[in-house]
């Protein structure tokens, strides 16, 4: 039980609730009016978007994936950042000029169709739930790793915090809260990096690249919490207490090369210099293979890499909670400026996870055995720096992790609740406040229940599934909706359904049937690379077939989307265009 870390997490949660209730912008004299009614500067809005975007998957998950998977996993942070380049170039300004607040709004503004709007709403809810789930799991992992709390507790606490914030008056100053959480996250991940690198230098800078597969430097005791299977390449002598390969063991033991099963509660003690047995599902990589691309031992690694790039590059523009934040920008130009700044801010953050991944192989290799590589960011400070400094740094990363899952979970819940209350709950409940609260409860309770019965997929991988669905649905919709005037409502609806169903089915099948191998496995577990072009083609073909349904007044809409507000031609053109 780490008291400092517990305090740090509690403090972050309290600050979140407190800042949400507090309004920075209360002006009491007319002199303050100007400040109180001025729009947020682009860099602060960008901080808020980054704060909402950098989730538990980024803070904890990316380092874990890099630790286990090496160079291929570096595409995760790269992809998370590059998504904003496409968003900036193709979507940010026109979307802002459309006046839309949510993605369903955009469908209505561009296609004038309630049908497409409803399909988009359902997809927003689906993507939101897929995305909240790993946040709750990340919270569970953090509380379990640092405080020994039961795994379900973290998710419950996050859900409760989010509900308090929303039911108790909403996010009064969401931009302030999320912006603050971005800077907290950057400091919480960057500052420890400096200490970690200094400690690593002091330890004679061992290399993770030129070495063999990870070994235990010292005599190490590892306790296993779940029933797992591990693989060893060569005979290994160790001590064990508990149940190994279905036999009670207490004392010295020799493992032959092959797979060994460990029951929950077993304790293993390895001598110094022993190679680290890996969880069966993780590849055993030596330093060379770890640091090179496409050496991760996965089938069709090249396809998987490109499919991941597809999902992350294109998925970002379809994330509902990110897009709503662009509404705060006063115009299209400011939206572009914000997106540009986000690239810099997010890029800065993503420098850190690779360092944790690399140092994790040297100093916390036992995570490769237990499979809990997502915990590497939380455990490294104590393992490498240690002492009081280690405790303070642990508290700092704990606060950062808490900021990560809280920020993303609240942002997503508010967005999903907004869409639910507008298009689904609001049809049954008239009072807008009640309907918003009911929707917020639904938005957070469904993923919580799913999370309670769930095992864990690596966090960053789980989030990439939400990206894949977003890439296969909203990215073709936005790209065609903004840049192709002949998109029709029927085309958009069919494309959204085809892309959404294809991506979801692929993900479900690939997780329900883990034994599939070869191309089917690769295609199903990384569906974005084929589902997105499929949805795009569907939209184009169906739109051409239903050409008579082109949105009435599409030229006016296009003019509005693409003309900078400053030009001012819109008004006169539009006035002349109709009637």
């Amino acid at each position, binding site marked *: 039980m780490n008291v400092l870390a517990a305090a740090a997490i509690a403090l972050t949660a309290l600050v979140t609730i407190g800042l949400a209730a507090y*309004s920075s*912008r*209360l*002006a*009491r*004299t*007319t002199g*303050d*009016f*100007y400040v*109180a*009614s*001025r*729009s*947020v500067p682009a860099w602060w809005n960008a901080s808020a978007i980054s704060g909402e975007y950098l989730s538990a998957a980024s803070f904890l998950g990316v380092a874990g994936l890099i630790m286990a998977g090496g160079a291929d996993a570096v595409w995760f942070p790269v992809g998370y950042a590059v998504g904003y380049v496409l968003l900036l170039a193709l979507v940010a300004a026109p979307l802002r000029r*459309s*006046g*839309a*607040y*949510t993605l369903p*709004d955009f469908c209505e503004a561009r296609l004038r169709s309630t*049908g497409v709007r*409803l*399909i988009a*709403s*359902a997809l927003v*809810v*689906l993507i939101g739930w897929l995305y909240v789930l790993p946040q709750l799991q990340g919270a569970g992992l953090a509380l379990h790793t640092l405080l020994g709390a039961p795994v379900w507790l973290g998710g419950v606490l996050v859900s409760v915090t989010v509900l308090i914030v929303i039911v108790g008056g*909403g*996010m*009064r100053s*969401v*931009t302030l809260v999320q912006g603050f959480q971005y800077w907290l996250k950057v400091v919480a991940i960057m500052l420890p990096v400096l200490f970690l690198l200094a400690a690593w230098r002091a330890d004679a800078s061992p290399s993770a690249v030129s070495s063999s597969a990870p070994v235990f430097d010292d005599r190490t005791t590892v306790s296993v919490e779940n029933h797992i299977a591990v693989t060893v390449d060569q005979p290994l002598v160790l001590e064990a207490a508990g149940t190994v390969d279905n036999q009670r063991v207490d004392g010295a033991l020799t493992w032959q090369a092959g797979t060994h099963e460990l029951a929950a509660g077993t304790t293993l003690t390895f001598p110094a210099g022993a190679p680290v047995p890996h969880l069966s599902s993780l590849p055993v990589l030596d330093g060379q293979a770890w640091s090179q691309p496409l050496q991760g031992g996965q089938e069709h690694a090249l396809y998987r890499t490109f499919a991941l790039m597809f999902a992350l590059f294109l998925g970002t523009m379809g994330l509902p909670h990110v897009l709503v934040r662009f509404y*705060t920008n*006063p115009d299209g130009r400011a939206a572009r400026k914000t997106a540009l700044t986000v690239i810099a801010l997010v890029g800065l953050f993503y420098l850190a996870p690779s360092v944790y991944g690399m140092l994790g192989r040297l100093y916390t290799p036992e995570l490769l055995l237990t499979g809990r590589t997502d915990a590497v960011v939380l455990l490294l400070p104590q393992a490498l720096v240690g002492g009081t400094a280690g405790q303070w740094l642990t508290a700092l990363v704990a606060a950062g992790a808490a900021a990560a899952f809280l920020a993303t979970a609240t942002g997503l819940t*508010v967005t999903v*609740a*907004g869409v639910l209350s*507008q*298009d*689904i709950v609001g*049809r049954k409940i*008239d009072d*807008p406040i009640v309907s918003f609260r009911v929707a917020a409860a639904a938005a957070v309770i469904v993923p919580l229940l*799913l*999370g309670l*019965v769930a*095992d864990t997929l690596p966090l960053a991988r789980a989030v990439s599934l939400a990206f894949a669905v977003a890439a296969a649905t909203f990215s073709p919709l936005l790209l065609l909706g903004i840049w192709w005037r002949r998109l029709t409502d029927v085309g958009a609806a069919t494309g959204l359904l085809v892309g*959404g169903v294809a991506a*979801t089915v692929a*993900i*479900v099948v690939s*997780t*329900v049937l*883990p034994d599939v191998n070869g191309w089917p496995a690769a295609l199903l577990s990384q569906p974005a690379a084929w589902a997105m072009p499929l949805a795009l083609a569907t939209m184009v073909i169906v739109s051409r077939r239903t050409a008579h349904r082109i949105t*009435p*007044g599409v030229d006016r809409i296009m003019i*509005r989307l693409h003309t900078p507000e400053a030009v001012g031609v819109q*008004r006169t053109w539009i006035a002349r265009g*109709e009637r």
Partner: protein
Amino acid sequence: MNPWVLALAAIAGAVVLGVVIAGWVRGRARMGTEGQMATYRTLHIASLAAPALRAGLTESAAQRSVKHLRNLLGVQALAITDDFSTLAWDGVGDKQREVAATHARAALDSGSAVVLSAVQAREVSEMLRSGIAAPLTSEDVVVGALVAYSDESAGPALMRAVEEVATFTSGQLDLAELDRTRARSAEAEVRVLRAQISPHFIFNSLTAIASFVRTDPDRARDLLLDFAEFTRYSFRSHGRYTALAEELRSVEQYLLLEQARFGDRLQVKLRVDPEVLSVRIPFLCIQPLVENAVRHGLEERDTPGTISITAVERGPDCWISVEDDGVGNEPGVIRRSLSGEPGDHVGLANVDERLRQAFGDEHGLVVETAPMAGTKVTMRIPKFAEAVTDE
């Protein structure tokens, strides 16, 4: 993540999607007797055509409704014309669409339905044998015609059907005219509001400014500039909607001018979430409320009064409220003036009317008041509304 969870998630997603689509489709297919089904089908087709026509007899409205009207009549081709050209065509013979305008001539001139000759019908397509042109009216003026072509000879049944559909369409056009009249009258009211910047206010402001000219010339200059800015905004001629930030700037200038007059007696609290500053609201929909608050909250007493203006983000909506701690009012009085009776709260009724028009009836003003308990006026503005982005 356990496979079952993902399966569950997918099922949950599918259920949501299903519910949504079912809700959308529901009411389209419901069983009944043949007669009920036929009635339902006819009314449903008519209801499909109606919304487009509510825009008036424009080309896009005609194009959107012509298909449904032809379905309703079950004829081979249908044209909608205005008084000199064909606006929309559905069915066979699209290439000959311009000829419909000449076929409509007789109906347009006589103001009653006319049977076309078989020769005329064949000008459109070889397969057609008869045609009927019926005039469309709006407020008793002939504005266009429906021209229906059939491959059977024209009987009295078809004649009556075309006439009835023309009457239905004319009814929709009348409603469209009514909508336009309402919009025009609301616009006129905005113009009145602008012109109505009360003479008292102008007089009071100028006197207050004059009183500073010697003692505090800098402040007098600032106030004059505020006054200029305020009037420029209020008199601007374009656009029915404006960003909340712009409206607030004008409110700020207004309050500065009032403060010059009331001094410390007027306290102001402002709380605005930056997230909603770019929400589009009807032009001049907050300023009249603030003016009301100053008048009823402050002018009738000597002690300091406070006016609070808040605009907060709440999910997909922005809630704006203007509150004073003044003498308040009988709720009945406010209810009557909101329902249009002339009285002390013209601004209130006008804002209410324009909000309902822009965002729908559930977005009218909510007024909370009681004698000696102050007044709070709240409005709920959707961050996105198609009517608003359309402009």
